[in-house]
């Protein structure tokens, strides 16, 4: 289904976490999770299908951080290959359903380029910006070659990079481009405004992403789980664009006894937060790190009420 059509019918529920699901069942360490698209495609397929079976209306391709910088140490994989496999797996899982496939893109993880890009107007800044742009363009083209229903650029911590990524997407595809950033509230209670981890303010984020050509904006991950409804309200007051919110299951912790990663937010609590985020004006909602099919099922039930 087309995203605009789906949105006209109401709230769209996305899937939950892929990475933490993979990690919990054992993941080759030291490589981007997207390498699983080639190593163990059946596991990806089965996770996609689980989310669809509990009511997800959109699933994200397993392509987070599969960019050429992250693959520098893993030359046996190419960006194109990982994205092609990622899209094909999501398409296969959703075949015969109305479920949409969002092409997932994560941050470059390269602060050196970002730093150079701060140095307005110099040759080195222009080169750094072009390099970053090309990193994103490559991923966008890989996603659109086979075909996805929207591009979702997510977990961005720095507005300048998010803007470059959004531009690279908007200028190289006709499908909707969504960009969501991660927010924190400063620990100092005197400053209660939301900021990204790199310090960008909410108005700057909203205006910057819209100007860059985003057709949807929002928030995901970050350490403001309980505050996501308030964040959605503030964003809704600044724009009429579709808002996309993907909430994590709390801060990742290592269980001292078992050495397993745990996220403490229970499915029922997650469902409550998701319904509040939707009530505050978010149009697309879903799970981020640590969420499971149980979380998405709980959200489905709350949204159906």
């Amino acid at each position, binding site marked *: 289904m087309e995203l605009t059509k789906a949105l006209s019918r109401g709230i769209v529920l996305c899937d939950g976490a892929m990475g933490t699901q993979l990690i919990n069942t054992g*993941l080759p360490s030291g490589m981007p999770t997207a390498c699983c698209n080639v190593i163990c495609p059946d596991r990806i397929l089965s996770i996609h299908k689980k989310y669809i079976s509990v009511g997800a209306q959109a699933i994200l391709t397993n392509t987070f951080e599969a960019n050429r910088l992250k693959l520098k140490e893993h030359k046996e994989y190419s960006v194109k290959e990982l994205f092609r496999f990622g899209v094909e797996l999501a398409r296969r899982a959703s075949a015969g359903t109305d479920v949409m496939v969002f092409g997932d893109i994560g941050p470059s*993880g390269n602060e050196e380029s970002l*730093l150079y890009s*701060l140095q307005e107007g*110099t040759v*080195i*800044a222009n080169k750094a910006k072009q390099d970053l742009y090309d990193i994103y363009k490559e991923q966008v083209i890989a996603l659109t070659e086979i075909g996805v229903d929207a591009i979702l650029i997510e977990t961005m911590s720095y507005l300048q990079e998010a803007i470059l990524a959004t531009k690279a997407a908007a200028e190289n595809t006709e499908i909707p481009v969504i960009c969501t950033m991660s927010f924190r509230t400063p*620990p100092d209670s005197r400053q209660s405004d939301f900021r990204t981890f790199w310090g960008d303010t909410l108005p700057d984020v909203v205006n910057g992403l819209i100007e860059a050509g985003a057709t949807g904006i929002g928030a995901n991950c970050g350490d403001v789980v309980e505050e996501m409804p308030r964040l959605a309200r503030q964003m809704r007051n600044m724009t009429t664009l579709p808002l996309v919110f993907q909430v994590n299951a709390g801060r990742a912790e290592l269980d001292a006894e078992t050495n397993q990663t745990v996220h403490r937010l229970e499915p029922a609590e997650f469902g409550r937060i998701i319904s509040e985020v939707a009530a505050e004006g978010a149009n697309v909602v879903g799970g981020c790190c640590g969420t499971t099919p149980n979380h998405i099922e709980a959200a489905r039930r709350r949204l159906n009420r």
Partner: protein
Amino acid sequence: MTNVEELKQSIINAHKIREEIEGEGAIGATKRKVEGLITAALKEGTPAESVINDGLIAGMDVIGARFKKNEIYIPEVLLAARAMKMGMDILKPEIVNAGIKPIGKCLLGTVQGDLHDIGKNLVAMMLEGAGFEVVDLGVDVGPDKFVEQAKTQGVQVVGMSTLLTTTMPAMEKALKAIKDADVLVKIMIGGAPVTQNYADKIGADGYAADAASAVDLTKSLLS
């Protein structure tokens, strides 16, 4: 304002320099400004040590304190650290001539299985900004490499970083390997999922929540 005081202010305000010198590239502008102030200070007879301590390091101290209080964010810190580094490069011959030693030497790395390094790089910059010599082993560093480098580099402190909960056990492994090898170093850890509790549990000498705290911690581990 003395040249050294002005140097300190240029480090603190490195992110504003591009606004001051319209149309000039900020890297070039920062370098010219820092270079001019250092040259003038040395010409007046200010000892290189004072240029470093009262200018460059004093500037980074303010940056660290403001970062901790969320008054400034990562971009401002990165630009200040870069200005500081430019200053140190300019002063290199003076440092050698005067026999000025770093206040300590640290080994840093992201642990095995983890490729994230923005946090670790920030710690490296802040430590250098505080006058430490830093040996950066990069990402995906295994226990053997930590041990070998800790033995041969003559460092006093080893800092380990990870962004993922799944690679936290690799931190414990590397820490145990260093302790088992009887290398006389203090070990500090950090990263998004790491806590003081975890540091206590695995027997690390310290935990820091952010790059500025890592500098304070390193100093206290050495005192």
